[in-house]
């Protein structure tokens, strides 16, 4: 945006009376996607994030090759979805998502979310952003939006690499639900999209927690580790039966509920509380990030 643009968009009425003559008070357009686009470019343009994406995509590739080389015997038990792969390649995507849900996906989201505010502060670019001027609330909204987009892209990456490779190696066909019934291929593919949407919601909720943690520190690595510790600590507590009283309040408790979307008919027993839980965590920690960031001194 050129200086001329700024002049044109400035409204004389908004210039505070008594202000210096010729001062331009720039108010950003109410809806401008420019900052958001530059934020996305930052996330998806970084080489380290490309490497991270490559690691996420390795898991479905490994699964597909391993199953191709040594197919599981029918009825052999073992992991859910893995024993379906030889029948239908789309299960590579579900197997990969199941495997990456506990650690790899949260790790990727933690790295991105931890970097959002703390990374800018660490590089010393946060104050320049704020003097542009970008409203602090808008900065947070843009950062959160970018986290949500990243969560969706990361989940889609795992699922699509898995589905493509699986379909290429094993072919498609009817999709077997957890209930033992069979769905037509496209209905099954739609179920996979629902699973992706649900996992994206869960990861975005973790991203909102990460956004808040990121406003607490100027060390992006510290923020990332803290987010990961929170996620893994929650998973560990979820596995301890003696703590069953607090299980439903843990942010990771409903992560595995995407299984509900693969039953016939779709069950709402765990997936609906899961959606509420993700929305609640997003709202609470989004608000907390706003409260923390709006009131803090930017010192670096």
């Amino acid at each position, binding site marked *: 945006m050129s200086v001329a643009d700024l002049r044109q968009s400035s409204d004389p009425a908004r210039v505070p009376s008594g202000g210096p003559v010729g001062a331009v008070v720039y108010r950003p357009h109410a809806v401008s996607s420019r900052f958001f686009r530059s934020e996305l470019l930052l996330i998806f343009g970084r080489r380290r994030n490309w490497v991270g994406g490559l690691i996420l995509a390795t898991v479905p590739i490994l699964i597909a090759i391993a199953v191709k080389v040594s197919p599981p015997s029918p009825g052999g038990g073992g992991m859910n979805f893995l024993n379906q792969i030889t029948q239908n390649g789309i299960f590579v995507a579900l197997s990969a998502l199941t495997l990456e849900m506990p650690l790899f996906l949260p790790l990727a989201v933690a790295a991105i979310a931890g970097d959002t505010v703390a990374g800018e502060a660490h590089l010393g670019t946060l104050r320049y952003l704020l003097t542009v001027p970008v409203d602090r609330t808008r900065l947070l909204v843009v950062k959160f939006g970018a986290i949500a987009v990243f969560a969706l892209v990361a989940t889609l990456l795992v699922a699509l690499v898995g589905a493509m490779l699986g379909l290429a190696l094993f072919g498609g066909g009817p999709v077997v639900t957890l209930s*033992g019934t069979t769905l037509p291929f496209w209905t099954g593919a739609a179920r996979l999209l629902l699973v992706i949407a649900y996992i994206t919601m869960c990861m975005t909720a973790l991203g909102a927690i990460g956004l808040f943690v990121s406003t607490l520190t100027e060390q992006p690595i510290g923020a990332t580790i803290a987010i990961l510790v929170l996620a893994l600590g929650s998973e560990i507590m979820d596995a301890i039966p003696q703590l069953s009283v607090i299980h439903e309040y843990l942010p990771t408790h409903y992560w595995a509920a995407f299984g509900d979307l693969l039953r016939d008919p779709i069950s709402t027993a765990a997936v609906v509380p899961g959606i509420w839980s993700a929305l609640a965590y997003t709202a609470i920690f989004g608000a907390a990030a706003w409260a923390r960031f709006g009131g803090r001194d930017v010192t670096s």
Partner: protein
Amino acid sequence: MSVMASRPILRWALPAGVVVAVLGGGVVSNQLRAAANVTLPERSPAQLIVDVQSANLTGVSGTVVEKAALGLPTLPERLGGDGSSQLNSLISGSHTLRVWYSGPDKTRVALLGAVGESDIIRNGNEAWIWSSTGNTATHLTVKDTPGVMHPGLGASAGVLPSMSSVPMTPQQAASAALAVLGQTTRVSTEPGTRVAGRSAYVLSIAPKDTNSLIDRVRVAIDGAKHVPTQVEVFAKGHPNEAAFSIGFSQVDFSRPNADRFAFTPPAGAKVDDQTVDPAHAFDQVAKPPTAVIGSGWTSVLATRLPKDLNPAAPGAGAGAQSGKGLGLDMVLNTLPQVSGAWGHGRLLQSRLFSVLFTDDGRVLAGAVSGDRLQAAAADPAAALR
């Protein structure tokens, strides 16, 4: 904004408000649901029992939540704790089932695991047991023998292997509870409640014998359909927390579609075909000797473990290789050892029942304390000779 600029602490009112709204929203909606006025015409216990017996249930489907707080050592998920989809896991933790019922010969029960499911589908003479974890389907065909009544899902529990003896639907649990009514029992009504968003009568069944570990059994009976929708069993000394409860969290009384009960094993699944002859179903299984000591709510059942399940029996190593034997073995070794005039053994005590495993392979179980169980073990009838 200026107030917030000078007092940044005020900004924290927003997240605090969101926390209050989220938690408060949950609590308030729960309390509204629980405290909503239940206005049902008065009915006596006897009337309620008749209502239940004469209720004409053509079809029902819904979600059933089962919770067990028996005071047992909690089992890890691998051995059937929380969220496990294994059918023998219903004794521990909390579980969710989906139920479809369209007459006694058309039933489907699905036990939901985190990412897994076990289904039992009964359709006429056929039954399927599906396990998503193992990708296995067991097909049972009941031989059509004239004169032998086709049992419903509950009665066939003994015929169908690996089906848990724990009640799978509120109907079964209620009929089991109502079956022990008699002179031993005090039956009364309690204020109505709401189950799955519907008004329900509450029938309270309590043993007169104070030696029973059971304090009372509460059966919620749907106000409109007269069908039991929830059963809660309370243990002595824990009047507010049900030791075992099973009930609908969501229910629909319309008849489920017939194709819900048709099961075709998916391609690639391991299918095991079995034929069950109800007339001779128990011939193949060597029926272990059993005896009942005492009567009513404090009666004790004594039986002998099948050889391959008995960890104390010689050659138990072979049995221990099967998952069930392994689990039983591991659990048994954690139980306290007891001994008396009847011999030695290990005692499992829960809030609702006790089980005594003697070293000579006998098993005694009852809703009584461990001491009374040991006294029963010394009874000559429990020697099982």
